[in-house]
């Protein structure tokens, strides 16, 4: 018998994941855990559609009661504050685009929950409601895309290593979203009809600028918006309020659509470009991790994805040392944004990934 910690967010996916384990894995003991990631939002600013509100804890508890499994709340406020919220804010201040869901997976769900789950609950494995699959083949644990390509979340899971993959379960990997909802309805789970969570759970109303000011005292200072030639074409409210690829909120009218091409913290400058100028074929990635532990070789072919739900593009990877690589894509890709994940696939297998670095860095 093994003991499995089911991470329950209070959403329909993790509810059904826990239900599947509780029903099918009759040999195993399932323990529901809801992670408290941050304090309560002020009244009126609670995020009804987010996974981390107190209401979500109530929903998760109700599901655990229906499934007749133990339920605990694990406080990860300190870790979440440092690893996810501060990292999110610092990412903007570095001129990068934050990737909070990936950070939450890496540091909270698969570091903190796995570590504390094993220690506190004597568990052997962690299960989540992610859409992804894990296979053991040729002596290696492999992270595979979900059966439902539309829901596949491997883009946020590339950091998992062999040790973590061996202790992780994704019960929804073979299901589609409609199947998951149907199962929730059949089990009359209170979360069956909850809408998808789309907001970032710790940013009320999507207003991250307030967070920059609160956590790092960044109020934003107006600076120039320049075009590719360095000509000033407008004024921005502070470089950290902009991310690469952004189109709206520039207040620049040049006769055709323009996008943020680069954010330069040192000079408080936002560089814009036309659509064709935003696409790139070559970029550098660091913090590289491979699910197998090591890259297949120094130079190899993959298909690469540089944002969630973007199409994969064939690319050649050239390693520079152990944790840095250069990507050369077969065709230009739209706005590789510093800070975002570049995730490598071989067919349906996720090989790993890394973080896109600034063009100048």
């Amino acid at each position, binding site marked *: 018998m093994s003991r499995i910690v089911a991470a329950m967010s209070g959403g329909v996916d993790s509810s059904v994941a826990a239900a599947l384990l509780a029903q099918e894995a009759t040999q195993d003991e399932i323990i529901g855990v809801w992670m408290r990631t941050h304090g309560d939002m002020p009244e009126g600013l609670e995020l009804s559609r987010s996974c981390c509100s107190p209401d979500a804890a109530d929903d998760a508890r109700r599901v655990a009661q229906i499934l007749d499994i133990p339920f605990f709340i694990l406080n990860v406020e300190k870790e979440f504050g*440092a690893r996810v919220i501060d990292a999110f804010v610092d990412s903007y201040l570095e001129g990068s685009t934050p990737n909070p869901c990936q950070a939450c997976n890496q540091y909270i769900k698969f570091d903190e929950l796995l570590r504390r789950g094993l*220690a*506190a*609950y004597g568990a052997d494995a962690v299960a989540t409601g992610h859409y992804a699959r894990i296979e053991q083949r040729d002596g290696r644990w492999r992270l595979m895309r979900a059966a439902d390509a539309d829901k596949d979340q491997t883009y946020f899971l590339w950091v998992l290593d062999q040790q973590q993959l061996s202790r992780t379960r994704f019960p929804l990997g073979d299901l589609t979203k409609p199947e998951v909802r149907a199962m929730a309805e059949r089990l009359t789970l209170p979360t069956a009809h909850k809408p998808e969570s789309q907001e970032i759970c710790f940013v009320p109303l999507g207003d991250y600028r307030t967070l920059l000011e609160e956590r790092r005292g960044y109020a934003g200072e107006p600076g120039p918006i320049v075009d590719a030639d360095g000509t000033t074409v407008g004024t921005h409210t502070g470089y950290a309020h902009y991310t690469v690829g952004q189109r709206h909120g520039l207040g620049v009218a040049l006769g055709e659509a323009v996008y943020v091409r680069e954010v330069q913290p040192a000079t408080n400058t936002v560089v814009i470009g036309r659509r064709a100028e935003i696409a790139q074929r070559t970029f550098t990635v660091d913090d590289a991790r491979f699910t197998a532990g090591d890259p297949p070789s120094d130079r190899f072919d993959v298909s690469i994805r540089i944002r969630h739900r973007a199409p994969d593009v064939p690319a050649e990877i050239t390693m520079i040392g152990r944790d840095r690589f250069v990507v050369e894509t077969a065709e230009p890709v739209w706005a590789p944004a510093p800070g975002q994940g570049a995730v490598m696939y071989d067919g349906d297998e996720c090989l790993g990934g890394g973080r896109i670095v600034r063009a100048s860095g």
Partner: protein
Amino acid sequence: MAIYLDHAATSPLRPEVLEAMLPYLAEHHGNPSSIHASGRRARQGLDESREIIAQLIGAKPREIVFTAGGTEADNLAIKGVAWAASAKGRHVITSSVEHKAVMNTCAILSRQGFQITYLPVDRYGRVDPAELEAAITERTTLVSIMAANNEVGTLQPVAEIGAICRERKVVFHTDAVQAAAFGPPAPDAWQATLISLSAHKLGGPKGIGALYVRQGTPMVAQTNGGAQERQRRAGTENVAAAVGFAAAMQLAYGESPPNALRDWLLDALAALPGVAVTGHPTERLANSASVVIDGIEGGDLVAALDLEGVEASTGSACTTGSVEPSHVLLAIGIDEARAHGSLRLTLGRGTTQADLDRTVAIVEACVERLRASAPSMVGSA
């Protein structure tokens, strides 16, 4: 069957209490305020219960006000007296280790213009009567200091406090919700004006408590409506629960408290590496063993113990997963890091030596497992 060591949170309903209550949940259905026979029958149950409780604590029946629990009793006592005496002065003295029911009630008064003094405590959690005496001014109308602490079990010198209050003509309220589980509160020996009580800590039902109010104490009702409870607490009385409360008290005060088992448990826990007893070594609740354990998170330990069949607490019921360190542990001088590692085991009816042997072995194993896991890496990676 799990070993239940959380009697300070709530103690299971005694079978005899359930028996005593059942007629009042079924055939004796009347409203005690009704004129007819059904009403009179219900009224009889309520009156008898009030008499039993009054007699057990050495009070008059008219001095017992039934409430929905200890928290409501605290609210009624503090707000009721503070406002009734507000023409004389608006200064309330309490301690820094009170239950939230007192702490947050005082905080509300503070926002309404009252001055609140929080007396410090020594490293065991005890108030110094001399400091209380020095804190009383001519504007002071109320002193509220608990009889026994719910987290670390320390008993306060209530009789000394009461004597000072009496001499200085200040109302003395004491929350005896925990203390009253192992022997009757004593209004006269303590010279207390107001005493909060709760049924479910001594094997009665949840949802009922009482406030002892010394005859002649001016008080503003906090729940308005009908004339029940001598106009101090409106609302149809919870007759079955009152009957259960009285029955539970009678049974509880006929039992000998588990001091010896508690002492054994405290010694056994203190013998584990990195474990320190919190609260007073001897002047403490008969059933309470509380400790802080280095290198662990109390909430994680309690979850781990639960999965191994031991039901315990970090010290106070915490369901929201907040990690605010306990104000009680901070007040007795335990630093924030160690305060996170709190564990409270509270014994009750039926707790055996064998239960405690097993518990100590399980605590030791779980603590070892928790300590072996890598510490939180925030800020260092």
